[in-house]
């Protein structure tokens, strides 16, 4: 599997997002966002909205129903709550990504790992911090994608975040099919294997259409 962005494409944005940090950016229709898992097995929590009307947003159930499969990979169309395609996954060198497990929060961490864990940093904190710059807030939260995170689901519904399958340098590329506000939390979770117990930086590159 190779990436699809041509080698001579011009990156109009290229930066390393440090571990544990939030990020938000409008990816214009036709532009492509590349996410690089620099260190491997680093969960990248991801939400996307119609940048021109943010009440239209990513819908995990509509996305998995549309393709009849619970994993995000090459060819997956990210559907909105209004039934439109926000972005398309053009390439994926990891293999599959989760959209069942949601984001970690201080509050869910307190339930999952111990009441004292509510003081730890979490993805919902990052999402809310990033959304506020767009005049958005908790009402805008919904179930997200976790790129590079491995959550197998069994026939009986059993579901668990297990050791990752993303090698260092794994890439996903997403083309915006409308002007898309992308919000990312570089997951800070330390209590399960989603980041290999070692949150690491990721690289975010935007290519013009």
């Amino acid at each position: 599997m190779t990436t699809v962005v041509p080698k001579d494409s011009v990156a109009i944005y290229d930066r390393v997002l440090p571990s544990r940090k939030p990020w938000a950016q409008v990816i214009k229709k036709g532009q492509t966002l590349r996410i690089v898992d620099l260190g491997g097995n680093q969960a990248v929590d991801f939400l996307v909205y119609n940048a021109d009307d943010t009440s239209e947003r990513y819908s995990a159930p509509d996305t998995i129903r549309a393709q009849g499969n619970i994993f995000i990979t090459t060819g997956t169309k990210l559907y909105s709550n209004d039934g439109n395609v926000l972005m398309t996954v053009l390439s994926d060198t990891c293999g599959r990504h989760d959209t069942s497990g949601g984001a970690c929060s201080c509050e869910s961490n307190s339930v999952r790992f111990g009441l004292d864990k509510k003081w730890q940093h979490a993805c919902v904190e990052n999402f809310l911090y990033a959304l506020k710059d767009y005049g958005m807030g908790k009402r805008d939260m919904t179930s997200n994608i976790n790129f590079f995170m491995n959550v197998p689901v069994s026939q009986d519904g059993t579901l668990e975040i297990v050791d990752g399958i993303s090698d260092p340098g794994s890439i996903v590329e997403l083309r915006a099919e409308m002007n898309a506000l992308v919000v990312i939390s570089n997951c800070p979770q330390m209590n399960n294997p989603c980041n290999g117990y070692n949150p690491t930086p990721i690289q975010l590159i935007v290519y013009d259409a």
Partner: protein
Amino acid sequence: MSKAQAFIDPALITGDEVIPGGAYWSRVIKRGTTLRIIAPSGSRGVSMLCYNADNLIERYNAADTAKIQFNAFLKKGMLLYSDMGRVLFSITEDTCGLHDTLGGCSNLATNAKYGEGDYKNSRDNFMLALTKRNMGKKDIMPNLNLFTRIKVEPNGNLVWAEKIAKPGDYIDLRAEMNVLVVLSNCPHPLDSSLNYDPQPIQAIAWNSPLPTADDLCRTANPEALRGFENTDDFFKV
């Protein structure tokens, strides 16, 4: 299922309503009361949203509910978690064990399989129910589906499992907070049937007994103990 468990003392009932096929319904179920949802003629799906009625920005979270309990399908003894680490509902009884947090709700597109006609869908039902409470599109979260079973194959394929509630199946949801519930009595979006024929369901609310020290739901696992610690704390202030 035992007849004794099914019996509700009529003196304790605070609400009893039949919800026709295709209709929506919403109501606040107070902490300490239980909502029984019955499928007298069976069911091919009921979609459900819920919220902390005292703070509507706190919502049922499908992903947290699944990952905290390590299962995306719900049954007796399991809990419905909010996005604030608290318990909205305990499933204190359940005769079918067919409920999923993954499949989402029907909409105009999924109803296209029925052809021309006025076939109500859950997305529009949710919008109408919420708009009447000054809520709206942004408050529609991934929902819970009652009375139907989907399955996830080893490669991740999501398929309809052809298991549905039989006549008389029911689920008891004990409110652990004051919970705003919205129900949409429309078939599951993955329902294989091309015949749109949702059957009536019955919703009974009653003042149920206080949980005992060994309550199944409250003591199910360490996560439940912590979830209830968070929940009870909300009512201490």
